[in-house]
């Protein structure tokens, strides 16, 4: 029986060889760039140097938790972990409500051309790289040519230019603001679509009852988009350390970080990247990366559990 089943599968497989060639070619690419790196994770427990190649991943000597002990003993570890978590949480706390607010404002705007104009402009920053945003930020926030500092100094609000981009005190604020600026318009699309899907009869009924505009938002619009809001919230908690809705934390911390604000801008990912690729400590850097992945997976599991608890439906 087994043999016959296998044979008919094989016959079917051969008959659809054109499809199978494409599928297998795809799986090869997937294997090379998604699955091969997975093996690399074990070097977090090994004494690996980059010149050992692929085979070295398996053949190098085991060192147990040596790298992890070193990381936990590193005097800046607490600071880096704190930056990772604070930056992620602040970004979530602000880049989550902002697009909802924007979508509500847009849906209340009656002048169609202006609404369309604001919407088109608002999702433009999402398509601009962090590098370009950083260029814009320097043009505005630079200490000697930045337009914001120029205005602040001219109005006499500050005595000396504010080092927005080069002081640890301003790093969180600037990052969160930039994240909100970059991504709110894009996420507002989802909420606007949800608002458009609300039954207009509900609003008409509320009109007859004499409900005010705010009352309609509170009692009809917000409950109407609850499902989308929860879905997006779950997704962004799941990708919290990656940056969630606020775009890549890594890119942002790497680009906006410099030697002057390093005590606020160094996060696990940038630290891993620099020790690995700039200092050549690949095994150690992989261990740092692994710590971040473990925290991420815990967050995904927690948010999935929370979602199942509150809405009866999880991500998976």
């Amino acid at each position, binding site marked *: 029986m087994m043999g016959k089943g296998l044979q008919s599968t094989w016959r079917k497989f051969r008959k659809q060889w054109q499809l199978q060639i494409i599928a297998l070619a795809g799986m090869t690419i997937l294997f090379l760039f998604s699955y091969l790196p997975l093996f690399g994770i074990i070097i977090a427990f090994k004494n690996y140097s980059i010149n050992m190649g692929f085979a070295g991943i398996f053949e190098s000597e085991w060192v147990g938790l040596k790298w992890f002990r070193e990381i936990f003993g590193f005097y800046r570890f607490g600071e880096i972990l704190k930056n990772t978590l604070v930056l992620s949480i602040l970004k979530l706390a602000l880049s989550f409500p902002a697009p909802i607010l924007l979508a509500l404002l847009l849906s209340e705007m009656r*002048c169609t051309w202006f609404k369309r104009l604001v919407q088109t402009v608002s999702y433009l920053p999402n398509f601009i790289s962090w590098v370009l945003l950083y260029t814009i930020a320097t043009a505005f926030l630079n200490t000697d040519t930045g337009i914001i500092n120029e205005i602040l100094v001219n109005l006499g609000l500050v005595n000396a230019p504010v080092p927005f981009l080069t002081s640890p005190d301003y790093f969180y604020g600037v990052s969160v603001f930039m994240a909100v600026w970059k991504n709110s318009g894009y996420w507002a699309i989802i909420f606007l679509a949800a608002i458009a899907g609300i039954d207009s009869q509900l609003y008409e009924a509320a009109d007859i009852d004499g409900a005010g505009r705010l009352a309609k938002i509170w009692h009809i619009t917000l409950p109407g988009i609850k499902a989308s809001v929860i879905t997006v919230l779950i997704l962004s908690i799941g990708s919290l350390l990656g940056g969630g809705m606020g775009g890549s934390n890594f890119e942002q911390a790497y680009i906006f970080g410099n030697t002057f604000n390093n005590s606020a801008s160094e996060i696990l990912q940038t630290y891993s*990247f620099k020790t690995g690729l700039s200092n050549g400590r690949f095994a150690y850097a992989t261990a740092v990366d692994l710590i971040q992945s473990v925290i991420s997976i815990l967050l995904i599991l927690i948010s999935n559990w929370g979602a199942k608890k509150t809405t009866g439906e999880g991500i998976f």
Partner: protein
Amino acid sequence: MAKKKENEVGRKYKWTKENIIFDGIVWILLLVVFVLIAYPFYYIVLASFNEGYDFMRGGVYFFPRKFTLFNYVDLLSQSKWIKAFQVSFFRTITGTLLTVIATCFLSYVLSREELVFGKIYKFLVIFAMYVSGGLIPYYITLRNLHLLNTIWVYIIPSMLNLFFIMVGINFFAAIPVSLIESAKLDGASEFRVLFSIVRPVSTPFIATLSLFSAVNQWNAWLDSAYYVNGEGLRTIAYRMLTEVNQTLGATSTGGSMVTTSTAMTTQASAMVASMLPIMCVYPFLQKYFVQGIMIGAVKE
């Protein structure tokens, strides 16, 4: 605030106190949003058309004080920028083309019910979406595949967009099986089916995928910073980053102001030039990507 508020669906606008205050606030807030987002872009364009030393004196907010095209001439005369633009154009066009072909082919094949081992293939894709080896193991892989320091490091590893494969599977699954079956009875090969039946109905999917992968390719800087060395393969985004960092380093350590602020206007022209391609395609693809992110959001 604007007095002309005609109602969209024929209902008469009621000039009650509540409506006036409410709409007034909506107008003010959205105007603030508009200025907050549009002005920074305008300011960069402005800087790119103003003479460098003059711009450095400050006070140029709305119109160029000393109009010049020199910044663009300066940009185009520097071979490092020209080279960077060439690299970025090449990777964007080739990369997008290959990503679209590979991603569409694979997601179409995986969408076919009768595919033997289809479930296993799909599982492998989903698993790879959630679990990754991280930056360092990925780098080691690229190194051992001898992709470092070649232009292909920008293109081949990103050929499959896993998220869009999942979107595509759902998209292609909606094509009626009977359509495909009847074409095959007429003797069409799988490739013929793909090109003559599947491709024409997939415009929104292909448009969204193209836009996203083109934007990713055009904006990429990390791979250019770490996966290649030597100046010949640097992309425009990487070039931009190093220039700005030099400026910032010089100004915050009190370095030469003159060179940095002239560079500021040239940087502005480089920025305008590097935003231009995105600005050009984005109005046309806008309606598709709104659809596109909705497919993704509903699925997730």
